[in-house]
């Protein structure tokens, strides 16, 4: 009679017996888990040698071999249903600068190895996404006509210590899982559309991510900031500028242009005030740091264009749009005199921002040469870089 030994060099019938029982335990007592299988990265067309372009999509590929990270991940459109077991624990929220996080959000879940491999073709690995169906939220405080699903990211995986049977062969796979975040890595899952009970197509991201709420908050703050400071510098448009010429005395005697003044009388019925009676327009504005806005003093009419008006009267204003920044001129009867440059601009980062720095960063202009049209904005390392002849 051979000596009794549960250990065998290969998977023995004892092992298989235990494995079937353990599998049965998972079927009976495990919770339903949906697996979003990670397939690999997607090629981004980069010419950077540290970001290789793979001919085959594989979980073994690494997108960025410099930083050793996979940013653009592809997930199987097939969702795999499995059973897993974990210890349910109480949750506490940790209030951080980015909102509330689950302080006890990390869970350890075990799966049956053979069932897992049979189901998804490999063991669960870091980067797979797990959906726990029994944690679906039906009563969230929102107006979304859809239940909120609970997702986790698989972090580290290893054999579970409790998963070794008497045969010393392992049966269980222990995964450390953390709450999912709405990040670049998982957009392949989060951008999938689902149809709500209202018939509306919503992406998973629209339903469970806080992104839209935080962008709305950001927009509200920026809007108020734009109310407080619509443009850089100072708003002097409401300040009144006296109608006068520099160096001249202020006198309303300027208003009359009638020639035969000696014939005038004090008779109120006498029509002696000329039709062209008016003050000369101001030839200066309130000065100061960043006060130029291209608006004429006192809001007086301004002609805008890329040339001066052909027939201009003394005191007329013209805003030349072909100047950068636009320049306001005033006609003094002989020449067009510069008054100010419209240097005020919005301060919100973006294409409307006309600051010097923004002129480089947000430049959308193009130039054309014999090779076609090119964007003016180019990385300094790439500007006019020699190209291969072939």
């Amino acid at each position, binding site marked *: 009679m051979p000596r009794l030994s549960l250990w065998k060099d290969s998977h023995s019938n004892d092992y298989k017996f235990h494995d079937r029982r353990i599998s049965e335990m998972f079927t009976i007592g495990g919770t339903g888990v949906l697996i979003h299988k990670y397939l690999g990265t997607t090629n981004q067309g980069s010419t950077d040698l540290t970001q290789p372009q793979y001919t085959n999509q594989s979980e073994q590929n690494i997108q960025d071999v410099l*930083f050793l*990270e996979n*940013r*653009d991940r592809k997930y199987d459109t097939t969702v795999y249903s499995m059973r897993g077991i974990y210890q349910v624990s109480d*949750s506490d929220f940790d209030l951080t*600068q*980015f*909102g*509330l996080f689950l302080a006890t959000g990390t869970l350890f879940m075990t799966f049956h190895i053979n069932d897992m491999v049979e189901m998804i073709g490999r063991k669960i690995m870091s980067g797979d996404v797990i959906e726990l169906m029994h944690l679906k*939220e039906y009563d*969230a405080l*929102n107006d979304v006509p859809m239940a*909120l699903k609970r*997702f986790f990211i698989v*972090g580290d995986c290893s054999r579970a210590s409790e998963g070794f049977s008497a045969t010393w062969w392992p049966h269980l796979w222990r995964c450390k899982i953390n709450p999912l*975040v*709405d*990040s*670049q*890595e998982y*957009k392949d899952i989060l951008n999938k559309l689902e149809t709500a009970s209202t018939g509306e197509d919503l992406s998973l991201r629209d339903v*469970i991510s*806080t992104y839209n709420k*935080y962008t709305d*908050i*950001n927009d509200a*703050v*920026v809007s*108020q*900031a734009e109310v*407080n*400071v619509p443009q850089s510098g*100072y*708003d002097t448009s*409401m*300040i*009144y500028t*006296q109608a006068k010429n520099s160096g001249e005395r*202020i006198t*309303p*005697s300027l208003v*009359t242009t009638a020639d035969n*003044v*000696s014939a*005038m*009388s*004090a008779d*109120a019925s*006498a029509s*002696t*005030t000329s039709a062209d*009676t008016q003050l000369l327009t101001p030839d200066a504005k*309130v000065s100061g*740091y960043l006060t130029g806005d291209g608006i004429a003093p006192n*809001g*007086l009419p301004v002609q805008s264009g890329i040339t001066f008006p052909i027939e201009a009267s003394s005191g007329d204003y013209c805003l030349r749009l072909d100047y950068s920044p636009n320049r306001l001129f005033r006609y003094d009867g002989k020449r067009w005199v510069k008054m100010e440059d419209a240097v005020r601009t919005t*301060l*919100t*980062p973006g294409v409307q921002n006309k600051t010097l720095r923004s002129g480089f*960063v947000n430049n959308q202009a193009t130039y054309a040469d014999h090779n076609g049209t090119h964007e003016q904005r180019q990385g300094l390392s790439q500007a006019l870089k020699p190209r291969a002849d072939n």
Partner: protein
Amino acid sequence: MSYTTFFYDHQIRRFLTQFIRIMSNFQVQLGNDEQGGNVFQRVPVFYGDASRQASQILRSNSENTIKAVPAMAVHINALTYDRERVQEPNFVSKMNLRTRYYDESTGQYTDQQGGAYTVERLMPVPYKLTLKVDVWTSNTEQKLMLLEQIMIMFNPAMEIQSTDNYIDWTSLSYVLLNDIGWSNRSVPVGTEESIDIATLTFELPIWVSAPAKVKQLGVITKIVNSIYDGSGNLVNFASDTADQLASQTLTFDNFTVVYQGNTLKLLKRNDINSTQTSVSIETELKQRHSWQALITLYGVLRNGLTQVRLLQNNGSELVGTVAFHPTDATLLLYTLDMDTLPSNTLSPITAIINPQNINVDDNLISPATGTRYLLLHGIGVSGDVDTLGDTVASVAWNPDGQAPLVANANDIVEYNGIYWTVVFDSNSRPNTEYVTNMTTGVQYKWQNASWSMSVEGRYDSANWSLKL
């Protein structure tokens, strides 16, 4: 128990909103979409010291919501008094400015002048505000994308404004990027699963200011060049024209006003041929001046509300409201406040009459007792004789048995029920007197041995003012 009046101008709050604005609208590039196009995602920025309740609301009161990354959170790290920037704490800056007229009906500013104001600003208090920006990213490439965009903005600083108000001298400051904490994680990471956060530390030298004083700017209508008389003594301004040689008063570029009827005319001193001050002057103007043009220099005339004040010889002011004449820009319609007229010093007269051209009727022979007339010519003046050498008697004025009435021009005569008698002898009245003609309602003034309308006439510069 008294309380300090509440004051809060959101000064630090406004800097925070502007700072969040600076950090807003940055994007990161995500992987290409299915068509191979670039995908960008804007990075939200928000205040990092949220309340627990607001955070739960943002989570939809559920554990299942997921956080979006990348994101940036701004919070105040420190606020300290900046001793190095202290300036004279008691300094008060004054700024005088005029605003354009705001038309309430259209909700827009016009090209006319509105109010004139003086703003007093107390020296603000310097503080140093330290802000931290936590940048949460999900991978290193994403972090580099954000930092590269942010870092070029601060060379060495970036301007920040809390308001674009021209008056607010504390609105402008700058943001210094003092420090970059690359990551909250250490290398090697170990078994921790913490998120990766880069921390940027910024410093803002700001000013916190007390409320300003905004006052209506007083329009200077009179400028006294010297406050001393020829003897070197202080001029008593209360006594009006104390020393005309030593002082000079200016009004509206030396414009003169003629009050006539219910109108005010605007003219220059040399526009008038006559130097008379009587209302009978014929103001032949060499040049006419527009009230509209003059007033535009100083503000907006509000019809029926704007006042013109006319200084009287006794130091009192005649007050009336003005309105533009509907057809003549050189005239203002003047509505006098009758309460500001000088008080009558004589009993009212019934009428002004020319005794050489009246009908002898009941008004003369048997008028009501107390009837008073102001005479433009004399009656039975002593020494007047007819061709026969007899004294001319005013037999019609007094009945037989009574002495004939003898009165001079400018006298006032009164009927006492029996006969006429002189009650105001113009030859013995050197003082200024006022009396109202009940027939016309016009008040007259006795001055310099002649009667004139009491307030109408010419008001030279410094003797009239405009209250807009």
